């Protein structure tokens, strides 16, 4: 009669929600924490915590942890696609001139045009 789907006890969901609440407090706390010389780490820290939260939501609330490998692959591939988008877009901004005739380190200021 049961469809064979994995049924989780309720406490798993409650604990997961509490963990997410804790991570949310951590997010706000990390924002106000004095980082001093490591101010540049503020964004990476915030993103790591956000990715952790998203992982917990996806694995537990969306049941991916207990799903088939095909589902896991598909869930991961969507976010992997997003990673490619961000990586290549930011590469265009962080490394704009790599491989271009305008990047002539030996003679700076020299125009590549005749």
């Amino acid at each position, binding site marked *: 009669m049961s469809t064979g789907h994995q049924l989780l006890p*309720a406490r798993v969901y409650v604990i997961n929600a509490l963990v*997410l609440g804790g991570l*949310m407090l951590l997010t706000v706390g990390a924002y106000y924490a004095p980082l001093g010389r490591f101010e540049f780490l503020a964004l990476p820290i*915030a993103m790591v*915590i956000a990715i952790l939260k998203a992982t917990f939501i996806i694995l537990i609330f969306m049941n991916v942890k207990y799903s088939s490998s095909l589902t896991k692959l*598909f*869930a991961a591939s969507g976010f992997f696609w*997003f990673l490619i988008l*961000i990586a290549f877009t930011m590469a265009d901004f962080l490394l704009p001139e790599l491989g271009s005739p305008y990047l002539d380190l030996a003679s700076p200021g020299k125009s590549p045009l005749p």
Partner: protein
Amino acid sequence: MSDTHQVVGPEEPIVWEQYETIEQQEEANTFGIWLFLAQEIMFFGGLFGAYAVYRFKFPAEFHEGSLQLSIPWGAVNTSVLLLSSLTMAMCVYHTQRSNVKKQINYLGATLLLGCLFLFIKWYFEWPDKFAHHLVPVLDWNPAPGTFTDNAHAQMFFVLYFIMTSMHALHMVIGVGIGIWLLWMSKTKQLGENRYLPIEFFGFYWHFVDVVWVFLFPLFYLV
């Protein structure tokens, strides 16, 4: 199963014509909903990509812009959505066990929390932006000295309004679908042998929550 356990919905799982087993059908359906969620990732991904570019270009204005947003309200909204994810998961839990009353209660709670989120945005956060004339196109006139460069800061608010509006639109659509599922629950169509509609609505709801989990630090905590 105890004698007092009432099965709600179909007496046994209904396998559609093109499938051999219920497991195969569920696998295919799950695959389908994840295809839809992958499309949603592409939808929001483009917006997040635009955010990444402009934040990289105008870091100072993005910080100044985020100071205009209310972190307490953002934190409250985040908590509301996290709680709604829990009530959604509990609704699926009870549907899988044919507890109709609790299923309806938790689904109702999820939708109410979603409406609370929208209410906070609509009644507290967005009017505040209008009051300070920080709405691009409609009412852009920030007080002098608020931002290093008004044009750059405008990009922060363009992205803020577009991304939170798209997110809010997804919430509104979610509440609409949820009301339909509420009706399905009340008419006892969903139970332990037919709970995928509720489960997949839960996936959609959790995904919208994941989007907000990223929106909150990227806009409010710059």
